[in-house]
């Protein structure tokens, strides 16, 4: 009877596990397909659609998304300047930023949409369409000096001088001086929707005011206007951003929908201004440095770090990330940092301290009594456990770590998952040998398989009498291995390290019990 019941349970368990796995793969497949289709739609639409002009008192901003724009610049007349981590390219047509390549991530922060529609950060859009065309579709004279590039444009009415300085910290200082544009509204094209980096993050416009951070979704249908004391604004995805910050702040930002899930951010600017562009990754320490720099220069707290969104589990993820980052500063390898963190957590959460080592010595003294109890209650495991626990408590020595340390693993696990999914530091972060990206799955499934094996070994070490239960555990080890196959390898690394430490601990405990 019991046996039958067990088999039934096993069947149910198998069925449930299989169902879960299959439905998971179906769902994820569906989503991937969906994404691919969306992208297709997007490019089709971008060819047809043109932006609606901004209706505003005193004029409207027209992006001139037409054939004229596309034909004006063939992207042949380009100046490339090396940066610390890649390069920036400017077009002599319009003096715009047409490329910002980062070697570390092998990515161009200026998106494909910009290139196909020839709409770039660094453009000056005015309320006069003819002036807008003049400022962005005509050839500027350029002059390079070290890390500084200047663009000049002059005709009988209008004079424009744009100077970009490429700094070591990945920022581009922007200095714009104009003449003859006092009677039109001016805005600086701050960002165009970046290529999405997947779920777990916001894609779209981001605006930092002196009080808060405003995130706007890409699927808006009408122009959004934000009036506030704005410190910086632009576009972001999970990992990267394209922003402009103006000295002294600005008052108005427009978000213009230009295609499906694609927007352009315009920052309204005075006729002359000084500021900086940042087109790059949201690296915690770098954004901190830039914030500090402008705290000194402009005496304002830009708080660029607030662009890093840890998401729903940020309460857990952020402190763990800070801890990981702290360790990383010493070891300079994120994989190693995860291992060190795991060891540290073990030391805090598990009784491997001086006190418990003492307890283990006591355990050795208890061994004869344990044997006696084992014989006495051989037929009643329940009672045996009770008596053993009594013995431990009386002697003040308990080899078990307790339920709390085990439960504490769950939030840490979630936090680490969060950190791996949302921080750019762990994107493309190599560990060693075959692990080239800790935020991606193990390409050869070595870590998940090792982890499964470590679970099986753990079962060998812990003595269990029930055969069925042991069977379940082997199955679970298999299910876990499969589950972990597609998890980020950093997470599997954590779990594997944790398992191995647990094994070592069990071995030590077992040895001290046998002595």
């Amino acid at each position: 009877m019991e046996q039958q019941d067990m088999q039934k349970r096993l069947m149910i368990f198998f069925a449930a596990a299989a169902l879960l796995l299959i439905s998971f793969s179906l769902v994820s497949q569906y989503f991937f397909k969906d994404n691919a289709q969306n992208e297709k739609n997007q490019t089709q639409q971008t060819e047809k659609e043109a932006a609606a002009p901004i209706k505003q008192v005193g004029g409207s901003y027209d992006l001139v998304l037409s054939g004229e724009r596309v034909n004006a610049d063939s992207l042949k007349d380009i100046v490339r300047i090396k940066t610390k981590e890649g390069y920036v390219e400017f077009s002599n047509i319009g003096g715009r930023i047409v490329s910002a390549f980062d070697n570390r991530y092998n990515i161009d922060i200026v998106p494909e949409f910009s290139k196909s529609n020839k709409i770039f950060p660094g453009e000056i859009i005015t309320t006069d369409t003819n002036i807008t065309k003049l400022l962005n579709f005509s050839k500027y004279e350029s002059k390079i000096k070290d890390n500084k590039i200047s663009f000049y444009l002059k005709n009988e009415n209008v004079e424009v001088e744009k100077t970009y300085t490429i700094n070591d910290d990945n920022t581009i200082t922007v200095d714009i001086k104009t003449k003859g544009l006092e009677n039109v509204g001016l805005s600086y094209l701050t960002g165009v929707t970046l290529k999405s980096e997947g779920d777990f993050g916001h894609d779209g416009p981001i605006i930092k005011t002196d009080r808060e951070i405003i995130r706007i979704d890409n699927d808006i249908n009408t122009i959004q206007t934000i009036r506030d004391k704005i410190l910086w604004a632009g576009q972001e995805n999970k990992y990267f951003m394209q922003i402009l910050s103006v000295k002294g702040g600005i008052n108005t930002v427009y978000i213009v929908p230009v295609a499906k899930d694609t927007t352009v951010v315009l920052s309204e600017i005075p006729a002359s201004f000084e500021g900086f562009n940042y087109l790059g990754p949201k690296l915690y320490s770098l954004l901190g440095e830039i914030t500090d720099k402008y705290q000194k220069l402009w005496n304002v707290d830009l708080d660029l770090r607030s662009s890093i969104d840890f998401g729903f589990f940020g309460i857990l993820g952020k402190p763990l990330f800070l801890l990981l980052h702290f360790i990383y500063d010493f070891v300079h390898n994120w994989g190693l940092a995860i291992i060190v963190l795991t060891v540290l957590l073990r030391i805090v959460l598990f009784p491997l301290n001086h006190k418990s080592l003492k307890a283990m010595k006591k355990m050795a003294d208890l061994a004869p009594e344990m044997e006696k109890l084992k014989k006495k209650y051989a037929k009643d495991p329940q009672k045996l456990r009770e008596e053993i626990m009594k013995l431990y408590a009386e002697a003040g020595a308990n080899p078990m770590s307790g339920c709390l340390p085990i439960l504490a693993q769950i939030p840490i696990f979630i936090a680490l998952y969060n950190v791996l999914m949302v921080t750019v530091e762990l994107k493309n972060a190599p560990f060693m040998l075959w692990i080239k990206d800790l935020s991606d799955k193990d390409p050869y499934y070595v870590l998940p398989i090792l982890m499964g094996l470590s679970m099986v070994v753990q079962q060998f070490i812990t003595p269990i009498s029930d055969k069925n239960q042991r069977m379940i555990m082997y199955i679970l080890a298999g299910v876990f291995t499969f589950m972990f196959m597609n998890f980020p390898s950093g997470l599997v690394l954590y779990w594997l390290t944790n398992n191995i430490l647990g094994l070592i601990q069990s071995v030590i405990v077992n040895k001290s019990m046998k002595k």
Partner: protein
Amino acid sequence: MIKKLFINVIRFYQKYISPIKGQSCRFHPTCSEYAALSIEKYGIIKGTLKAIWRILRCNPFFKGGVDYP
């Protein structure tokens, strides 16, 4: 009844999830058994609170031993 459901969830945990982590509890009965017993005895709210308090105590800084709800 919700009480039954809670206890069944705990039993499911004991059967299929708990084995993954191996034995770790410092008490007798184990924390999960304690939770089931205390929910049975005190009802969902008080029983759950008592169970949470028990789990919080189940760490190397407490002695452990025999502790029934």
